[in-house]
């Protein structure tokens, strides 16, 4: 769309992200989804204590997940759907 540099891009390009930082980026999803192994979690926590860009990147990632959870409204199931499923099933041998 447009060439606006996002803060994330700035971080990774301007800081010459270390291999450690690259590893953190690859762990971020697993961290926020609760899928990281205990070793990865420890690695992550130790790293972000001293790395502001990674700390920020994690916050941002977490924020995105929360924004989705808070803003995507659940749809209400149409009232007749349950009964029509039941009657289709009743009629099925």
């Amino acid at each position, binding site marked *: 769309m447009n060439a606006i540099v996002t803060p994330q891009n700035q971080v990774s390009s301007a800081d010459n992200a270390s291999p450690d930082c690259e590893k953190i980026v690859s762990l971020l999803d697993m961290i926020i989804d609760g899928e990281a192994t205990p070793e990865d979690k420890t690695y992550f926590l130790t790293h972000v204590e001293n790395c502001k860009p990674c700390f920020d990147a994690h916050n941002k990632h977490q924020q995105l997940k929360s924004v989705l959870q808070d803003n995507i409204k659940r749809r209400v199931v149409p009232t007749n*759907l349950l009964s029509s499923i039941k009657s289709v099933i009743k009629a099925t041998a």
Partner: protein
Amino acid sequence: MSDQRGNQLSKEEKDARFEAELLPILDPLYNFAFRLTLDEDDANDLVQETYLKAYRFFEYFEQGTNAKAWLFRILKNSFINDFRKKSKQPAKVDYNEVESYYNTEGNDNDAEIATTSDMRSQSVQDLIGDEVASALNSLPVDFRTVIILCDLEGFTYEEMAKILDIPIGTVRSRLHRARNFLKEKLENYAKTMGYNNTDED
């Protein structure tokens, strides 16, 4: 009426078990269908079709296993096989949702919400909600799907891999790319709205 073998369930028993195990999942299943099709009628059809298939294959469902993942898998396959072929159009913006969202929130009147100049009022939250929904809806369906499954329905990577028939590594990378897409869209939006959600120190 049939002459069933001893270990097979009567239709009544099967129906009762089916209803007890699978119908409670109607709500998340409908929401998944809606997020995929972005259309109420299509979602309705897709869910009905899913339950019908589930009923036909109910003997393959192992009781006590993950019924939700099983149904989501059936629905996802039905969507790919039938619905995607039918609707050639790309993801459309969900105007109905925007509308019903305003109507259900109902603490402000629509006119006020519509004024974009009033950026610091209650309505900011509504606008953000709409923007988030349309950013999600604009993602390619494979990306949208992993976000829905992970962030909105809370499936684990392993469950997602089963639902989608892809390796866990693919789940991970798809999720990562999907989130980057979304982040970019929403950050651009935030900038145009004069927010800068870079972190407070």
